[in-house]
């Protein structure tokens, strides 16, 4: 049994079909890069994994639990599935520490002193230990995104989802965020990342999934798939992104 299994997933907004029968298995420790044009359904795919998007067909399971079963306790599931968004989505009224410790405190009932240590530990991982008392609007985009990653890590997730987390950043800030991801990869974290950074995908991902028109158009080992696309669509996409 794979950690994450998507089987024939269908997602519609009204009459518009965003995901049209998507099947994908993710093993423990695997790093999957999902690429494709905007509107191809790659972000939606990611958001189905932690149940942010209800689906109209197929099944999504995480560690054996059916995500799209109305009886599933999504709160419990989401404690194990971290997600980082394109727009950071830090809570503007809370300090960095409070952003990170909110969920451990109210969901897992971690005592305050321990929570502070937890915040320090995850902040060290993303290289921002000194910003623990800052507020989101005092941080650069890259720093905010690293705090968002730390916030997710504090829940000690089994899998991390990254939804175009460098797309809203100025180019010079992309590197510091990707560096954090690389370290997490080295630590063996299971990751699914939607990204436009093809070079990064080639370097870090085990597998690349190319989404097109709501389907998985092409997938395979990262280096080989990106070097030798089998479909003209992926070829077109790659040449558009790389130039």
């Amino acid at each position, binding site marked *: 049994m794979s950690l994450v299994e998507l089987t024939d997933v269908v997602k519609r907004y009204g009459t518009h079909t965003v995901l049209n029968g998507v099947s994908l298995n993710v093993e423990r420790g695997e790093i999957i890069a999902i690429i494709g044009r905007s509107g191809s359904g790659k972000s939606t795919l990611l958001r189905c994994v932690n149940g942010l998007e209800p689906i109209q067909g197929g099944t999504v399971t995480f560690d054996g639990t059916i995500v799209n079963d109305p009886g599933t306790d999504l709160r419990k599931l989401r404690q194990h599935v971290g997600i980082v968004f394109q727009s950071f989505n830090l809570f503007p009224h809370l300090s960095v520490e409070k952003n990170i410790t*909110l969920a451990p405190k109210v969901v897992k009932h971690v005592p305050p002193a321990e929570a502070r240590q937890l915040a320090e530990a995850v902040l060290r991982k993303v290289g921002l230990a000194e910003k623990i008392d800052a507020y989101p609007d005092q941080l650069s985009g890259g720093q905010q995104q690293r705090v968002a990653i730390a916030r997710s890590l504090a829940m000690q997730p089994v899998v991390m989802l990254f939804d175009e987390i460098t797309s809203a950043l100025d180019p010079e800030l992309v590197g510091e965020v990707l560096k954090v991801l690389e370290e997490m990869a080295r630590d063996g974290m299971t990751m699914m990342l939607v990204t436009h950074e093809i070079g990064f995908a080639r370097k870090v991902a085990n597998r690349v999934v190319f989404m097109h028109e709501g389907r998985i158009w092409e997938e395979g080992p990262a280096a080989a798939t990106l070097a030798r696309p089998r479909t003209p669509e992926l070829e077109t996409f790659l040449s558009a992104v790389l130039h």
Partner: protein
Amino acid sequence: MTYSFQFRDVFAAWEFLLDGLVLTLELSLVTMVAGLVIGLAGAAGRVYGPAWIRRPIAVYVETIRNTPLIVQLFLIFFGLPSAGLKFDANTAAFIALSINLGAYSIEIIRAGLEAIPRSQIEAGQSLGLSGLQVFRHVIVFPALKLMYPALASQFVLLMLATSVVSQISAQDLFHMASIIQSRTFRDFEVYILVAAAYLALAMIFRLLFAGLYQLVFARR
């Protein structure tokens, strides 16, 4: 036309005015608390509740916001006794004012809740927070901060509007003015003085609200 202003007789009755001032303050403060509570609960129900909760709240808000406070007051004080519900003037005043301010607060806070981006809610949910936890830790504070100025002006308007309770002979500041007027016949002086007292109150409330904002919402 010669008229000499004489505030002396009016000032001589300061104890009356003070009593009235106390009731005006009490009514205002208690109503503000009630208004905030109704506003928060009502707005949450209006935005996140199921249809059978949303619908009645919408009807309440629209009914109150589209009818005059004084008519609401008369309906409660003069009208309800015939339905077997009898209140003294102060209680009727408090009920009418709270129902009134509650409706306005719901509308204001609702706008604040709706202005919080979906992505904030999703971020909270993704961390495993329950709906109530997301509301309490992620949504309420920024929403109230956003709507604070509107809420504060509504509260000041409410304080001024408490003057209508004098019309059901609740002994507030304005009512005391009428009493003094009927004793001294210094109509002009009395009402100018009372207007000035309300103006002072309004400014004090604005200052307090500004201070409260600094205390609660501004950091650093």
